[in-house]
């Protein structure tokens, strides 16, 4: 792929980060649906606490995998991308979340191979279709961002924006909060992203970690329940 100029880089970063980018983020809530249904998240402060918890988990699991996939792409290490993908799935312990990441990951790979000509991305999609790699979303993000010449800090921020945006956009549909509330939360959590990036950028696979039993239990309620507006 030809190296894009700075304006094109920025445009593409925004397109890939946009919640309208068609990989299906709108159909997920990162567990918020059940958190709202049980009354745990019911206003702006509880929504902010929940979103912060999701952002931290995303940074130190998928965020780490995405950074490793990105670095592997840059050093032309295809097996390294496969390893990042494998690690993302090994640590993705919630079944619905695994399904979500694989759907979005495949969608992103499909989309990118249709809009740009990148041999690594094409090979990646073929590997997913042949069932040789799970095809998680962070692995695909690592590939697509690296192929576009977008740096890893931007990748990480886009990844975090996606995790936070998924919860906040879902919140407008299932929690009594306003657009002002959700934007205020996004504004504050954005300021916490640099510290998370520092932690994730220095992390090896063995450092990937998450501790959120309450969120895990909500995810299980959703998985076993019948009432749903979102896929997770």
């Amino acid at each position, binding site marked *: 792929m030809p190296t894009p100029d700075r304006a094109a880089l920025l445009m593409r970063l925004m397109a890939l980060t946009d919640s309208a980018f068609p990989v299906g983020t709108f159909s997920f809530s990162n567990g918020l649906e059940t*958190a709202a249904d*049980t009354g*745990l*998240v019911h206003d702006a402060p*509880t929504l902010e*606490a*929940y979103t*912060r*918890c*999701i952002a*931290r988990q995303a940074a130190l699991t998928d965020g780490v995998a995405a950074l490793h996939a990105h670095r592997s792409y840059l050093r032309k290490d295809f097996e390294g991308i496969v390893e990042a993908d*494998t*690690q993302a*799935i*090994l*640590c*993705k*312990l*919630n*079944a*619905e979340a*695994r399904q979500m990441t694989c759907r979005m990951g495949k969608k992103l790979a499909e989309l990118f191979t249709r809009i740009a000509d990148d041999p690594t991305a094409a090979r990646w999609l073929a590997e997913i279709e042949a069932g040789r790699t799970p095809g998680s979303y962070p692995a695909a993000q690592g590939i697509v961002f690296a192929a576009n010449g977008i740096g890893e800090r931007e990748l990480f921020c886009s990844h975090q924006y996606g995790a936070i945006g998924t919860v906040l956009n879902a919140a407008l549909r299932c929690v009594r909060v306003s657009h002002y509330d959700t934007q205020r939360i996004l504004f504050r959590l954005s300021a916490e992203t640099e510290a998370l990036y520092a932690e994730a950028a*220095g992390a*090896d696979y*063995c*450092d*990937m*970690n*998450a*501790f*959120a*039993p*309450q*969120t*895990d*239990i*909500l*995810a*299980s*309620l959703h*998985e*076993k*329940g019948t009432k749903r507006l979102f896929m997770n």
Partner: protein
Amino acid sequence: MDFSAAKEMAPYLAEPKAMPVGTPGKTGYLYLGFELDGQGRSIMRDLDRRAPLIVQQELYFDEGMPEMPCVYILSSGGPNVDGDRYRQHFAVRKGAYAHLSTGAATKLAEMRYNYSGLRQCFELETDAYLEYLPEPTIPCRHTRFIADTTIRIDPTATLFYAEIYMSGRKYFDRGERFAYDVLSVTTQAERPDGERLFREKFVIRPASEPPAALGVMGSYDVFANAIVLTPPDEAERIYARTEAFVDDATRTAAGITRLPNGCGLLYKALGDETGPVKRLVRRFCSTVREEVKHRPLPEEFPWR
């Protein structure tokens, strides 16, 4: 025992003043091997131990499964103290079965210089069955603890592995809730051929990321994690029978999900006190035993 890959323990590498790391009595070792004897009875064939870890012999006291060898792991040192390192290896060979627990709660003492580490390895061969259901772990103020568990399991075998962590000595002094420095727990599993199955790691550093936050522990004090590695048919039956709930009346919550690579299930429970959480975990273990060994767990002893 090398825990140097764990960055979260890096701030705690000073030599304890009382006794240095590696002193006899601070480096516990346990090797337990279970197998079927000539008559087809499951027995503890191998026992190797080093203080402070103590195992005496297997006993057959489980009324639900009287043929099951039951072993309590004890520690002559009382709590795990600063600079302790323990290594435990449990092997359950072809067709054998066993139940492991601890004699009392594991207390993690206050630490000033170093940390306490536990490395565990579980090996389960064809059709092996192991229940690992210890008493809760209680981290005291300023404790630092790392547990690193590796499981190697045949696709036909079943492992029930549970841990219960308290927030601390919540009724001691003016109350200790999440007053420890760090708790790092990693559990990973693989097949005998090396195929990786899952890895769970949680690092809790209350000073920088308070666990009493919404989505994390919420307002609960006790957290249980139970891993069940079992063949897919058994896993589906256990999954179907296990309820996910949040009960505001009893202040307990629990959930279950399927682990990656079709290797089994992950069950989590939260509560205010250990009693109700222990009962939930025990009930879940009973479901596992019923689906795999077709017998329920007996009632817990009244003194436990």
